[in-house]
């Protein structure tokens, strides 16, 4: 899949948070919201959550499971796990670069 197909625009950040939330197993919408809020300290609104979920599902990064009562769990696909790994590795490298530069400046 090309980068252009993965382009998530202004939903890139919430999408990343959702992918991380699903990385330890399937969750339904409300569980994702509370998990993201607990992990980042920032709320994820329901409108943003479902706009991002629709994009992630369309791009094949997550898939919907059968609903339990009215709640439908989502899980990471193989492609989603691969994309998340790449993104986190890229962020890690970027964070290390920033911290290294900060360290050099503070010496």
């Amino acid at each position, binding site marked *: 899949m090309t980068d252009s197909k993965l382009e998530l625009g202004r939903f890139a950040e919430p999408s990343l948070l959702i992918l991380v939330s699903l990385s330890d197993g399937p969750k339904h919408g*409300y569980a994702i919201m509370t998990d993201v809020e607990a992990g980042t300290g920032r709320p994820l*609104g*329901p*409108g943003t959550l*479902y706009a991002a979920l*629709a994009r992630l599902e369309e791009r094949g990064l997550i898939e919907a499971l059968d609903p339990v009562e009215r709640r439908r769990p989502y899980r990471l696909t193989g492609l989603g796990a691969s994309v998340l790994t790449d993104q986190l590795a890229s962020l890690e490298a970027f964070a290390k670069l920033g911290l290294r530069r900060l360290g050099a400046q503070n010496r």
Partner: protein
Amino acid sequence: MIGLLLALYPAPWRRRYGEEFQAVLESRPLGPFDVADVLLGALDARLALRLSDRVTEHGGHLAMLRIGGFGAIIGSALWFIGIAGGSAADDGSDTAWLVLAMLGSVGLLLALAGLSGFQAHLEPRLAWAAFGIPALGTVVSVAGMVGMTLMQDEPIIGTWSGWGVWMLGLVTTLLGSILFAVATIRADVFSRRAAVALAVSSVAIFAIGFGTVGATNESLARLLTAGALGAFAASWMSLGVSALRRRPIRAIAPA
């Protein structure tokens, strides 16, 4: 309040996400942040719906998808049972099998119409050619079957007996099925593996049919033919399953 917020989203979006979204909204008291976020979400969904060409195309073809999927599964099963049962019946009781095969052919015709209609926007010329040829073959096959049922071995068109007309229709159906498989592989909308299996089994029916003419080992020839016909029917079933498994998500997700 929740009902009002939900009503702001476009209908296709509500059909797909409405119930679970409502469950999320009911899970906790809605604050001003949540309401503003949902309003923006509804605006985003409506903009995405307008911007995406795929919305109307896919949305309008969901019924075709279902008709095609069920037609492929039920039609291929009836077709195979009818052909296999008719071939095995040596006591002259093959009318019921022929009727079953005819019903199966009608199901396959619906499958061709539905599945071709769904993928026509991707490969218009190829998809409609891939519909037209096997559809013609299926109609000719059904005419042949009716001829066999009513006239037995008597000619029904010129010197052609019902069996001859049926064979002509079957050959046309197989050629068209190969074309349909190519269109399906190119469009990449349904299972490519099933489409390849459809093409291979269609060729195999030809090869076995011609290769076993005058064969001394009749039971082996019958077994091979039954295997190829079974693979042909199974390929259609698999295509039908992959059509029914397609989620309508593409109809509402943004480009």
